[in-house]
């Protein structure tokens, strides 16, 4: 069942309230407040070292905020990384983090790990373990098919070209049908055709499944065309948060970021991020 207009429902999926992170003498995040609602695509941009990845890490429980609060679905959280999937959060990694020793199908099945029965069930080969595996394999194949890489299901990630691996990593995040999806440089290293596919997938997820999506991306054109809202970080502070056109025109943003990378020049394809 898909919502006809998820944007109007606007349930707050993720919100950060005055989140600060300090590493020694470095203020990585400074009083950052940000919300992402169901069905909304929010782009997070900023120069290198602005704190984008730190913000992701706070949401994922990899970095503890020095102060401030993270809420998921309205309830305050102390996120624990391996419980995120169960809480409906999935994230892709900049380095993909695919499991080299597993096939593509198994990599995607691993995205459903939060529902795997325990080691005792595994040891006796319990029926519910086998049922879980069958179900996980089916769901993994569905997602791989949606992303057009089902052909690669039995291959190892290392044997595949970078754009395909990138789709596999996305499939692993999507297989748990997250309510909140965090994408770390999803377009990095992709060519124009793959970026167009990616944009279509992301829009589709937000529009038909009401998935809340927060993405960190350097490809400014993609961010501006794809996102409902764009947030800009600079030296750990949120310097802008609004519609793409507003943000693009904001002098502070141009100063901090957009001026550096010519936004009109399409980025060359190829080359791993």
């Amino acid at each position, binding site marked *: 069942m898909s919502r006809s207009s998820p944007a109007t429902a606007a349930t707050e999926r993720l919100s950060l309230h005055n989140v600060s992170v300090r590493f020694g003498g470095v203020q990585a995040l400074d009083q950052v407040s940000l919300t992402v609602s169901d069905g909304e695509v929010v782009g997070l941009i900023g120069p290198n070292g602005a704190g984008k990845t730190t913000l992701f890490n706070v949401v994922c429980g990899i970095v503890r905020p020095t102060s401030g609060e993270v809420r998921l679905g309205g309830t305050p959280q102390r996120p624990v990384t391996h419980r995120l999937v169960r809480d409906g959060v999935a994230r892709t990694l900049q380095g993909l983090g695919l499991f080299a020793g*597993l096939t593509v199908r198994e990599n995607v099945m691993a995205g459903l790990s939060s529902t795997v029965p325990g080691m005792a069930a*595994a040891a006796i080969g319990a029926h519910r373990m086998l049922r879980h595996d069958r179900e*996980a394999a089916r769901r993994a194949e569905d997602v791989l*098919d949606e992303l057009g890489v089902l052909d690669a299901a*039995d291959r190892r990630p290392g044997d595949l070209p970078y754009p395909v691996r990138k789709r596999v990593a996305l499939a692993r995040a999507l297989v748990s049908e997250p309510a909140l999806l965090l994408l770390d440089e999803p377009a990095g290293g992709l060519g124009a055709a793959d970026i167009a596919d990616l944009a279509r997938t992301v*829009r589709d997820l937000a529009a038909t499944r009401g998935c809340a999506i927060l993405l960190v991306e350097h490809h400014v054109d993609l961010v501006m065309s794809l996102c409902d809202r764009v947030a800009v970080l600079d030296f750990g502070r949120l310097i802008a948060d609004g519609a793409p056109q507003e943000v693009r025109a904001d002098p502070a943003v141009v100063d901090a970021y957009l001026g550096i990378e010519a936004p009109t020049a399409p980025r060359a394809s190829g080359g791993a991020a």
Partner: protein
Amino acid sequence: MSAHSRIDARAARWRPGPTLRRLALTVLGLALAITATLALEPYRAYQAAVVAAYLCATAGLTLLVGRGGQLSLGHAALMAAGAYGFGLTSNALSAADVAGPVRLLVPLAVGVASAAALGALLGAAGARLRGPYLAGLTLAVVVAVPAITSTFSRTLGGDRGLWIEIERRPEALRPYVGAEQWQAWVALAAAALVLFVLGNVGSGSAGRQIAAVRDDEAAARLAGIDVTRVKVATFTLSAAAAGLGGAVLAYVTQIANPGAYSLVFSLFLVVAVVVGGLGSLAGAFWGALLLVALPELTSSVTDALPVSAGLAQRLDGNLAVLVFGVLLIVLMIAAPRGIQGALTAARRRDMRPRRPARGATPAPGPAAQTQGDPAARAPTAG
């Protein structure tokens, strides 16, 4: 972009390893092995029992090192925990005049539990220590075995070891089955249990999680895997298997002594699983076989050599080490995936001409029929 029509036929048939089939295979294999021991001379039956006991340990080790990527150089210490746990319990039960199957099964269970407890501790440390540091810790544990046995020499028998009063074969079997045959049966049953359990773990989601943790911990966590729990569980399971191996060895040899679980033996276990084929249970079998066969082969070689008795004796102890080392080097060059890897590759080469080309048979994938939400796949305008 849809790949329904091109889905690999193999993928459409893919199923996780069904437990019942594995159980049937295990029972059948055990029955065959038990029958085969009847044809063996007592000494060969004893050797079969030792191979089966070692197989418990190598199977556990190959799961930990091959799948889990956690190097343990201390599996001999875990076997020792199993052996002493078995011995002390068996002696205590004997002193209390307990006899019957209880005097065999309870000590075995205690042996497994002791090793598992030690393994859980090592696993908890392993969740914090990486690579060489974990290996160093496990090394320290195996080095400590003789010190522990001599410190508590009153209970553990010191360097000479702990003599164990065991439950012998049932009265009814005595006219037909030799002592060594019976020991082999017990050992083979234990090995079958280990292979069944580890086979189950390795083939399903649990095995996938273990490998995922090995490949990328951060990504594994984000995928919902409790990395610490998986590491501790893997180490505990591996230790329990090694403990059963040690307990069975104690039953077969009727002694638990520190010399049998030395650092050298611990390293041999690692070399055995690498030579056999890391991560595969069949490889663990080749490794266990080598552990028993190599010293025997080298001693028959030294017997045949025209050298003095003194030199032959010195060679006897050391030649096996040398041969093992050389074998490791040669195999790593010739067959980096070990014996089992080489066998699998050879079989694949044999099969290739007969198999139809990959993807030649178009088969609709299961995904095609079971697609849940068609709206989710509908393309949206940009």
